[in-house]
């Protein structure tokens, strides 16, 4: 009961905004770090990329320690944010237009995250 009350009292606009902002920062760090490691190993762009990627991924690991939200469903929402960020990353950084399966599949997967996060309980 006490725990549930705490969670509800935490759902202030400030909490929600901080949470979402941190998730976007985390997604950018995670995808960015992974992208640098990808540059190193798949596109042979030099080990410097790999080291930088490792550092960025380490920073990504630090971000959730500032995250006020700590339960499974919020992390499921992060999965949805992550999907959108990946597709955007492909469009903006790699200049790859998502094909129709990627668009349809992403919309469906994000719907799954929305069901988990917004379902009336």
């Amino acid at each position: 009961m006490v725990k549930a009350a705490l969670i509800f009292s935490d759902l202030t606009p400030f909490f929600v905004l901080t949470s979402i902002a941190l998730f976007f920062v985390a997604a950018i760090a995670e995808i960015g770090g992974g992208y640098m490691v990808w540059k190193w190993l798949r596109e042979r762009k030099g080990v410097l990329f790999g080291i930088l990627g490792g550092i960025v991924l380490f920073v990504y690991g630090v971000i959730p320690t500032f995250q006020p939200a700590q339960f499974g469903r919020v992390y499921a929402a992060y999965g949805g944010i992550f999907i959108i960020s990946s597709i955007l990353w492909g469009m903006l950084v790699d200049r790859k237009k998502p094909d129709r399966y990627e668009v349809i599949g992403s919309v469906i997967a994000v719907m799954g995250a929305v069901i988990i996060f917004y379902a009336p309980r």
Partner: protein
Amino acid sequence: MAEVEQYPGTSFNTRQSVPKTFTHTYITSDTLHKVTYTTYTTISSLFVQPLTDAYKRKKVISTIFFFLLAGLFEIGGGYLIWLWLRADMSWVIGVLGGFILFLYGIIPTLQPTYFHRIYASYGGIFIVMALLWGFIFEKEVPDIFDIVGSVVAIAGVIIIFYAPRKGEESLWSKQH
């Protein structure tokens, strides 16, 4: 086991190498070798062999394996950094966590397609793994909405990652 069978990795016949004068049962290097060998073959035929066989057969299975492995490494590495900063454990644990996150970054490079497609699919896998993680470690039992949402997310992943495309090597055909 056949009389003259030689264990792999030895240049001698282990059966003949037992001295005939032995009357008591000692744990000799020979018995040790047999036990190790039997344990090794049992474990490999039960767990390792099916995996490597499946891996050789179709790419679908190896890609699923890499997704799950990436999830484990991400959550594991992140958890170690959490222990370092929030549970005041040694910085060594934090560094180890960072290294595991670096390994996590390497796993998607083993996947056979574009960067954004791998990462978008991984997001869907992550949804399910986050719920499983909450269920196992935080005792948050998933309700019907969690399950329906997970199934929908996985359906999305299947479409993003596993839909056969024209002009691309299919993940569903046998590897050559």
